[in-house]
């Protein structure tokens, strides 16, 4: 159809007449329409996998021209990657699979009429809609914090300028500085992410020769992902530099003050040179606005197909979804997207449907060539996405294995980017 269309436009009068003379059986039967809101790992993957075998008209609604990944942004912080290497264009999705890239925010969804209104005023109809908006930050979950304050105390939990701000602040620190990180409560994007970030901050300070700088982590959780592995790594590589406090140790995180650069807990007050606040999170606004999210702020799904529990024409992917045992990660979103794409092609293009199976792996870099991983396989079971098998790196592993795991980490990034964007 692409070539026919092109001929119509560029082929001059003869070709145009040919189109008129054969009145368009192919056009008369409109292709089913899929709209995808959000061009992250979930949205871009589902757009590609629905579009690649043809027969379905796919529109990706995403205001950005290119996408900067949140995954591996800690490696940029640690100086292991450039910012540019995290940024990827949508051009190949458009060119290779005929996906339409609507560069606008989705401002409303009419679930009865099955249309999406874009911020530029156009309204687009759909047969199936995929909502993959990622997270929004709950700025008011930490007293004293706000979107305006985040320009001074970065959360850096969304990629782009926030990550760059954190990097600038970290690199400017002098020896003897105190960094305070306020870690997020569950559930949040990238469970090991805050602790990998602590590791990368410590790596930068150590590499600069700091002897007296410290990182205090104030955590609203009593424990965290890969805790044993991180604590072992911090003691090994950064002795005395990292202090992690659970709620029993700090008594409660009371407030941040950007003017005086202080953080108050029940038991202490910290004056810091860098404060990294990672607040609580919720599904992206569009999902909450149209009633797809429940009281948790995230969206319940059917574990057998990633359909919204409240609307059978809508699929929810990635961080915005309540995916049972699966963590909020790019790997998870990519895996969920493949299940959803298969189901959508089954519904709209007579594609074959197989039982849903999901996978995830999260790698975390602790220090140069010292990487750990956690992951698993998941299926629809007991009304949710349930882990059927999991694995995690062990404490005390050999340096060789950890280095090999870092090779895998870099290979995965390259692989998932190829899978999502080419």
């Amino acid at each position: 159809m692409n070539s026919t269309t092109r001929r119509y436009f560029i082929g001059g009068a003869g070709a145009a007449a040919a189109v008129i003379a054969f009145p368009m059986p192919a056009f008369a039967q409109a292709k089913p329409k899929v709209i995808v809101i959000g061009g992250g790992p979930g949205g871009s993957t589902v757009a590609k996998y629905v579009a690649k075998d043809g027969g379905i008209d796919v529109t990706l609604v995403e205001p950005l021209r290119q996408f900067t990944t949140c995954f591996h942004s800690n490696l940029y912080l640690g100086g292991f990657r450039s910012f540019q290497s995290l940024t990827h264009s949508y051009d190949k999705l458009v060119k290779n699979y005929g996906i339409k890239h609507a560069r606008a925010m989705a401002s409303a969804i009419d679930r009865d009429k099955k249309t999406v209104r874009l911020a530029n005023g156009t309204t687009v109809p759909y047969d199936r809609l995929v909502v993959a908006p990622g997270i929004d930050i709950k700025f008011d979950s930490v007293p004293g914090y706000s979107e305006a304050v985040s320009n001074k105390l970065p959360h850096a939990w969304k990629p782009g300028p926030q990550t760059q701000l954190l990097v600038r602040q970290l690199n400017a620190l002098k020896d003897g500085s105190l960094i305070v990180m306020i870690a997020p409560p569950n559930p949040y994007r990238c469970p090991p992410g805050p602790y990998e970030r602590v590791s990368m901050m410590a790596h930068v300070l150590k590499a600069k020769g700091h002897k007296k700088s410290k990182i205090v982590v104030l955590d609203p959780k009593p424990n965290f992902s890969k805790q044993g592995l991180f604590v072992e790594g911090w003691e090994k590589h950064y002795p005395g530099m990292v202090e992690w406090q659970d709620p029993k140790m700090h008594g409660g995180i009371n407030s941040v003050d950007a003017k005086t650069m202080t953080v108050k807990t029940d038991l202490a007050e910290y004056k810091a040179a860098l404060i990294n606040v990672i607040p609580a999170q919720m599904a992206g606004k569009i999902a909450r606005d149209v009633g797809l999210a429940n009281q948790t702020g995230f969206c319940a799904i059917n574990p057998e197909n990633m359909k919204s529990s409240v609307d059978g024409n809508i699929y929810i992917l990635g961080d915005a979804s309540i995916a049972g045992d699966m963590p909020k990660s790019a790997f998870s979103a990519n895996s969920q997207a493949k299940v959803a794409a298969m189901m959508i092609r089954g519904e709209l293009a007579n594609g074959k449907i197989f039982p849903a199976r999901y996978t995830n792996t999260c790698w975390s870099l602790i220090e140069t060539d010292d990487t750990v991983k956690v992951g698993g396989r998941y299926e629809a079971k007991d009304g949710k996405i349930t882990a059927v098998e999991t694995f995690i790196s062990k404490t005390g592993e050999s340096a060789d294995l950890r280095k090999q795991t870092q090779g895998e980490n870099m290979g995965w990034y390259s692989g998932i980017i190829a899978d999502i964007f080419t």
Partner: protein
Amino acid sequence: MGRAPAAGDKALGEYLSSECVTCHQLSGANVGIPPIVGWPDDSFIEIMNEYRYRKRNNSIMQTIAGRFSNDEIAALAAYFGSVKGR
């Protein structure tokens, strides 16, 4: 050598392969994770079985391979065997 007696179902293999290509690139690029395209079926099946029965070390591959049936592994072998790397 020859092909496996019961050739795998390529359509099933293509669906299952979506799980693999998050890490193993269809282009055959070798960047930290080994390429798996264009192998003879029997080599592919043998290596998957070695992960499945934990004779080869890698927790991710043991977990992935451990849950595939013989038919599914044959299907994957047929699919990836048919892919020509770039």
